[in-house]
C-alpha cells in the first residue's frame, strides 16, 4: 500500500484474551500506542521533546473497525500512514493484519492534536513536522 509503513510487529499474548476467547479490545489500542511510537519518529517529533515532556500528540478522535478476531499466539503486524492534517492536528490510518494469513483484522483512523505538554494546550504544528506530514501524506481511502 503506497504511503503505508510497518509501525508494529508482534503477537497476541494469552493474558490479552478475554472470556470470549479472543483478544480484548483494549489491546488493539495498545498496538496503536506502540505503532505511534514509530509514527512520532517518522513525522519528526523530537524524541527528546517527548521524553522531556515538552511536546506530544494526543488523540482527539478515533474511528475503528474490528474486522476479525485474534487469538492467543496469533502473530500480527500494523501498517500506518499519514492521511490528513490541519493547523494543529495530524490524522493517521492504522491497519492491523494477521501476519500468518495476511488478512486485515482491524483498522483505525485517528486524529491527534499536537500539544504543548506544559500548558496542556493544542498548538500549531512546527514547520518541520508540517513539512514531513505533507511529504508523507497519502490518500487512505485509495489505499483501502
Amino acid at each position, binding site marked *: 500500500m503506497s504511503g503505508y509503513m510497518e509501525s508494529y510487529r508482534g503477537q497476541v499474548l494469552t*493474558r490479552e484474551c478475554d472470556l470470549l476467547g479472543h483478544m480484548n479490545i483494549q489491546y488493539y489500542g495498545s498496538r496503536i500506542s506502540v505503532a505511534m511510537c*514509530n509514527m512520532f519518529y517518522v513525522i519528526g517529533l523530537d524524541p527528546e521533546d517527548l521524553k522531556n515532556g515538552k511536546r506530544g500528540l494526543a488523540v482527539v478522535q478515533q474511528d475503528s473497525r474490528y474486522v476479525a478476531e485474534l487469538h492467543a*499466539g496469533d502473530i500480527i503486524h500494523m501498517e500506518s500512514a499519514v492521511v490528513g492534517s490541519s493547523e494543529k492536528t495530524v490524522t493517521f490510518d492504522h491497519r492491523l493484519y494477521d501476519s500468518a494469513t495476511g488478512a486485515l483484522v482491524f483498522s483505525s483512523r485517528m486524529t491527534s492534536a499536537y500539544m504543548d505538554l506544559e500548558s496542556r494546550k493544542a498548538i500549531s504544528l512546527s514547520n518541520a513536522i508540517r513539512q514531513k506530514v505533507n511529504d508523507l501524506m497519502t490518500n487512505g481511502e485509495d489505499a483501502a
Partner: protein
Amino acid sequence: MNKLLSLYRGGVEAWECDQMRHMNVQFYMSKASDAFAHLQNTLGLSPALIRSTRKGLRFKTIRTQYKSEVHVGTPLYGLGGVREVSGDLIVGFIHIFNAINDGLSAVYEFTADYADYDTDASLPLPDEVRTAAEELVDPHTESFQLKPFAGTFMPDRPLNHMFDSARGSVDVWECDQFDHMEMRHIVGYFSDAATHIINEVGLTREVIRSRNLGSAALDYHSEFHAPIRKSTAILLKSGLIDAEGKLFRFGHNLFDMDTGKLAVTTTVIGCYFDMATRKSVPIPKEFTDYPAGKLLKEQM
C-alpha cells in the same frame, strides 16, 4: 531470497522502564519472544498449526548481550535469521535495534528444539521445518557477531553459598496458551534478584542512590532445562561468581519447587554506571570485599 527477516517492530513504553530509567531486561525478552513467534511462522509453524498440534519450537539456550540502553518513547525494530541447523537444533539470532540511530540495542543468539508442549518431550525436527530452516541458513557475516562469553557458565547443579533471591508462584497471567511461564517473566525473576544480590554484598538501595549509581546487565547466558508451568512454586537461588574492576558476575538457578528440579540456569555479567553520565564506573567496594570463600567461582 532475503534471509535476514523482519521479526519485530515496536517501541519502549513508559511502564517498561525501571528505576535505572531504561527499558528493563524482561521487556527486551518480551520483544524477542514476539520476534521468535514470527520466526516460527517463517519456518512453517503458523500460530494455527501450533495451536492444533500443540507442538512447536522452544528455546534451549539463549545468549543475550545488551549493547546500549533504550529509554521511553524509543522506536525499536528487530531482525533475525537462522545461522545453522545442528542435528535437531535450530541455531538463530534476533537483534533489537534503536530505530532512531539504527544502533544495536540487544542481541539474542539462541538454540531451539521442536517440542511437545504438553509432555515437554524434545522431538525430531519435522521435515518441512528442517527444509524451511535449511533454506534460511546463512552465517550473516554482515550482522553483529558475538565474541565467546567471558568466563565459565554456571553448572546445572546447586552450589554452596547461593542464597534465596526471588520466590513466588507462577500466575495465570504470566503463562502462554500452553500454561508455560512466558520467557519475559522468567527474566523478570532474574531482574528482581539484582536487588537481593546488592543486599547480600552489604549494600542497600539507599546507599546505591546516595552514590548516584545504577546497575545494568551486559551479558546473559541461559540454559532451559524444563518449562515452568502455571501455579508452580518457584525459587531463584543466586550467588556472586566474582567481581573485579568494572564487572561483576553472578549465577542464578531457578528451581521448580513442585518437582525439586532445576528449570533454568543463568550466568550474568553486569556493571555499575553513573546515573547522570550513563557511563560505567568501578564496581562498589562491597563487591570486591565480599568473602572470597563465598564466591561461586571456587566451585566452578
